[in-house]
């Protein structure tokens, strides 16, 4: 690893030179490679986004040094968050978050809270969609809910990513909305969940769009409704005449559940405002690239961007929300 880093450094240094000459105003800039912590495994939604960012930043030379993606997925992401928390005032480290920013400390009692980090920016929000196998007769969310209601508790199986995390939180909210229990089966990653649905080993999932889109294009799974207040804006055709925008909201189908997941960037505690601003500007530039636009379209992301106090207020609200949801579901660890 060492010598490869060195190689990267050399390339980055050369790049840095050329950038510096263009950019004489001496605001803070990274002077060594920036570690990009992913508190989740390889291949998942957060990892895909981090690696896309790494690619975009390298391709468009948006940063004078390299961005290096490092997965620290232990303890449902706790390992990654603790690492950032303990790197006080280190401006060469950023972390991408998913809902485990809130759920992991609540469910496991790992000594960590988002307030231990410095919020940088919200990159996007990830949507959730209710999926069933395309061979099943349920054409609408109403059909599916009626079938669940007609069967005894726990007959229908819901597959999801991880335990006591976003997928299971949605499942519990769904159970409450329809008044029937589902059997929740946790898997390691979103891709695996989608394949289990195609193979008929579970009855439904709440995969993120990007996790299930390829199976949808192959007409193996069917989206029933999206857990957002309005339908998605993307009108490119995906399966037959259907696009992301043709999926009705769950609320309109009589299931009043809404959930969006944060894809945001945080830094270690104790970094300066100037350093935070550097990364806010960096990600603003990233958002303008065609590659980022493509990722947003493929994954039907909600493209809300926030930084500063606005972002902080949003995270505060989201934390309260998660605490309430998890309390109701009985997911809070005894230590809390």
């Amino acid at each position, binding site marked *: *690893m*060492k010598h*490869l880093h060195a190689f*990267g450094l050399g390339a980055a240094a050369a790049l840095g030179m050329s950038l510096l000459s263009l950019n004489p105003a001496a605001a803070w800039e990274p002077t060594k490679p920036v570690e990009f912590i992913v508190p989740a*495994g*390889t*291949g998942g939604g957060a*990892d*895909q986004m981090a*690696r*896309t960012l*790494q*690619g975009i930043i*390298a*391709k468009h030379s948006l940063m004078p040094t390299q961005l*290096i*993606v*490092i997965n*620290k*997925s*232990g*303890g*449902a992401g*706790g*390992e990654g968050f*603790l690492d950032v928390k303990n790197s006080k005032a280190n401006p060469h480290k950023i972390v991408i978050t998913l809902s485990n920013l809130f759920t992991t400390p609540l*469910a*496991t*009692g*790992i000594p960590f809270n988002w307030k231990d980090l410095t919020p940088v920016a919200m990159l996007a929000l990830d949507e959730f969609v209710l999926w069933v196998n395309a061979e099943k007769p349920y054409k609408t969310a109403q059909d599916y809910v009626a079938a669940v209601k007609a069967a005894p508790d*726990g007959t229908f199986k819901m597959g999801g990513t*991880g*335990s*006591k995390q976003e997928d*299971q939180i949605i499942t519990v909210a769904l159970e409450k909305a329809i008044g029937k229990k589902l*059997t*929740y*089966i*946790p*898997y*390691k*990653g979103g*891709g*695996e969940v*989608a*394949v289990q649905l*195609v*193979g008929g*080993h579970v009855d439904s999932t709440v995969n993120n769009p990007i996790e299930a*889109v*390829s*199976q949808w*294009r*192959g007409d*193996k799974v069917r989206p029933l409704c999206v857990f957002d207040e309005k339908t998605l804006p993307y009108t490119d055709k995906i399966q037959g005449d259907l696009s992301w925008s043709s999926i009705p909201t769950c609320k309109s189908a009589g299931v009043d559940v809404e959930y969006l997941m944060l894809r945001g960037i945080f830094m270690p505690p104790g970094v300066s405002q100037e350093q935070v601003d550097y990364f806010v500007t960096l990600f603003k530039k990233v958002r303008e690239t065609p*590659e980022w636009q*493509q990722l947003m379209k*493929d994954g039907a992301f909600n493209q809300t961007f926030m930084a500063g106090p606005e972002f902080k207020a949003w995270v505060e609200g989201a934390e309260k929300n998660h605490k309430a949801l998890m309390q109701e579901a009985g*997911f809070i*660890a005894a230590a809390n």
Partner: protein
Amino acid sequence: MLDNFLNLWHGFYIAGDPFNLLLMVVGILLGVIIGVLPGLGGANGVAILLPLTFSMSPTSAIILLSCIYWGALFGGAITSVLFNIPGEPWSVATTFDGHPMARQGKAGEALTAAFTSSFVGAFVAIIMITLVAPLVASFALQFGPAEKFAVYFLAFCSFIGMSKEPPAKTIVSMMIGFALAAVGLDMVTGQLRLTFGFEELLNGFDFLIAVIGLFGIGEILLTMEEGLEFRGKAAKIDAKVVLRTWATLPKYWATSIRSCIIGCWMGITPAGATPASFMAYGIAKRVSKNGKNFGNGEIEGVVAPETAAHAAGTSALLPMLALGVPGSPTAAVLLGGLLIWGLQPGPMLFVEQKEFVWGLIASMYLGNLVGLFVVLTTVPLFAAILRIPFSIIAPVILVICAIGAYTVNNNVFDVVMMLVFGVIGYVLKKTSYPLAPLVLAIVLGDSAEEAFRQSLLGSGGSISVFWSNPLVSTIMALGLVAGFWTLISGAIARFRVAQPA
């Protein structure tokens, strides 16, 4: 079918482009270097180089990256044979006979056998991919949690049944492995367990740390105890070693075919290369007439696991392309790459991106050929490493091990863990407990437990789920037979004796 061949022909045309051929050689060489350093596995190598490929066409990029992957697979065998340090889970079984061979001065033979078998396994798997790609994908879909558990069960049982050591010792060693595998986050409840409040244990015990310690450090401790003399001294630099070994390999055709079948099958089912290599080794030991000599440097004991591991590793790429589920960390990084190039793995990839898919498959053929050529020319070189005195090479191995352990998670604690595992490995070896079942349990324990509990969640707690369809019942039955093989074969033998009387 004919369509497949036409597509493949077109694929060769793309992969045979001089620029792409050059990328293959570069990729294989990089891969071998990455594979030789434990800890810096193929996944890291591919991840680091991924951004460099964005300026290429997707086909060229995937050729470069997958060749690094092949190179790392080949390279993993080198450290297994020379230093008893498996760089990847699936090279563990290669150490059982590969390292004893190196100690007897037959490192060149062992490396040649390992490389050649890897090539054969991978090649057979590629042919299978070419012929039956669409069928394979639908077979893989039949694997729910119960079926997956059955496959793991079969792997564990075949190890208990086939082991040379008394089954009790095998089971004790395996149980220690299961206990270690249980540390960290419990996937099903989302709770931490057995971490005793230590933040360092959040991640559980990484397989690589355990293996580097148990095998690498343990080995150094043993050698030190027996005096600082290095037993591989007899190794001579001999360019003809490759040809000489090749002449003996055709004898093991039956083992090769068996291992190819095991490998392809395990690769398509999501179990992967590690159980495949262990199973192929275990079965070869049972069936071969040299079985008694396994573990003492029998060349067949290198052929069997290497063939199966690479057949499995290669055929595992198919579910990734057709279903979008990566079979290994390296595959997961490749998957991320595909997404950046706007290629969505899944059922439509074969329909919409024909040029890319068949270019990749054609590059598997060429990449493996190029790889075999590259690594075989280096055999005498690597074998010569063993001529260096032990007192010089031991510190170097120690440093490489420490760097390897550190790079797994960029964590100093892991280096300490590695040393602890080294002492454990030494003690276990001294008391003749087998290490392999322990390693197998650390690698597969987590996944097996997960599959078991997912199955029970789905069935509402009823254990009958493991007999609920012909597929899962067959695998479970095979597992039981394998596990009680010692008893069963004993009973048959007694029956035979009783018969004439």
